[in-house]
């Protein structure tokens, strides 16, 4: 059977091309930063990663609320896909931050408010995925994932605003276009949009895979069974 071309690959390809261009600019074209030197170029990945981790988890929050209302397996799949991407980006964020902190701050890790809240974010959303794996059926899985996402989301605004609320820390306050050289804006924005597109692409891919797994589980449980609107297995129209 010929496999259909999944349209989200277009988003992925555009994302990869933009990331390649942004990184080429950031690594080879723009001048090295004052004071930071070459190591400062990690800025072009770290900042877009941070923006997109918070942005994608905000998407998860919206999907979680929607999924609680409509109870559709497809929303559950998209929600889980986006949380997985959010966890990936947050993990990258913490690792990049640590790598940048060693030569710049002089340490790998410290108990700074921003660093602590970001680490909590990673653990909280990894916990969402863990909670999900405990559920016994599709309906329960959707509920647990959505509720856990909404609870974990509390930390997202905290991570963002903590540098304002507790400015005494080692992490810098928010940077603005005025605090970043205009030479750097293009590469930074390309990478930011690229990371967003790649995040959307991966979310789609994971969502598709989760839906296929649901179907496979349903088939293994009862060949010929279908899923009802709430994702419960139905055999000949009767709910299990």
């Amino acid at each position, binding site marked *: *059977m010929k496999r259909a071309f999944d349209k989200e690959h277009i988003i992925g390809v555009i994302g990869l091309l933009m990331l390649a261009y942004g990184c080429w600019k950031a690594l080879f074209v723009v*001048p*090295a*930063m*004052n*004071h*930071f*030197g070459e*190591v400062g170029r990690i800025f072009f990945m770290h900042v877009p990663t941070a923006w997109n981790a918070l942005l994608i988890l905000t998407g998860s929050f919206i999907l979680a609320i929607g999924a609680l209302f409509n109870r559709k397996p497809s929303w559950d799949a998209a929600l889980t896909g986006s949380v997985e991407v959010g966890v990936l980006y947050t993990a990258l964020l913490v690792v990049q931050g640590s790598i940048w902190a060693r*030569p*710049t*701050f*002089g*340490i790998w890790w*410290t*108990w*700074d*408010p921003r660093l*602590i809240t970001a*680490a*909590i974010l990673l*653990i909280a959303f*990894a916990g969402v995925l*863990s909670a999900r*794996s405990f559920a*016994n*059926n*599709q309906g329960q899985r959707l509920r647990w994932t959505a509720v856990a996402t909404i609870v974990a989301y509390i930390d997202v605004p905290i991570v963002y605003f903590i540098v*304002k*609320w*507790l*400015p*005494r*820390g*080692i992490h*810098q*306050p*928010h*940077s*603005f276009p*005025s*605090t*970043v*050289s205009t*030479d750097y804006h293009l590469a930074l924005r390309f990478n930011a949009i690229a990371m967003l597109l790649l995040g959307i692409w991966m979310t789609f891919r994971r969502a598709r895979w989760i839906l*296929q*797994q649901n*179907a*496979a*589980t*349903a*088939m*293994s*449980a*009862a*060949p010929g*069974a279908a899923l009802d609107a709430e994702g*419960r*297995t139905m055999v000949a129209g009767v709910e*299990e």
Partner: protein
Amino acid sequence: MTRPDEQAETLPWAGAPVASQEQFLSPEADHPNQGKPAQGKGKLFVAVALIVAAASLTWLVVGGVEQNLVYYLTPSELTAKGDDAIGANVRLGGMVAKDSIRWRPEETELKFKVKDHGAEIEVHASSIPPEMFREGIGVIVEGSIGSDGIFQTRRLMVRHSNEYKAPGDQETVDLDYMSQTLEDNGT
């Protein structure tokens, strides 16, 4: 539409095999939703994940609460504590005072002064400073102050501003702004 089982068979990473006859006839088949394939492996993963999460949270709480909400004290605050501060493990944050750095690489001995608008404290370190370390930059040092008024540190951290400028581009955020962000505490 493709039949779901056809699709599933083409996925090499789908851990659970698609319905085998044994599985279908096994007791779990009566409770399809409880009898997840690869249950044993899944349980182990969940257990490991829970242990990791619990250990990390404990580590965060213990590590984070030990220090209180104030990440560091300013030179003025530390000076104001007077004798009470002697020997206590604290973080001190401020700016590196102008013309105060004395660095003897052969002995890895670093001396400098940390100041804010009200006070100045002599700091002695015995480590190689981070590359960003220079006059006028923010620093946070961990250690304790002695009765001689000298702060001995084991850990020197640089706190830079939110400026990311190319050479030749004017630096607009001045050091006053930076020292202000050092001394503010959310007020």
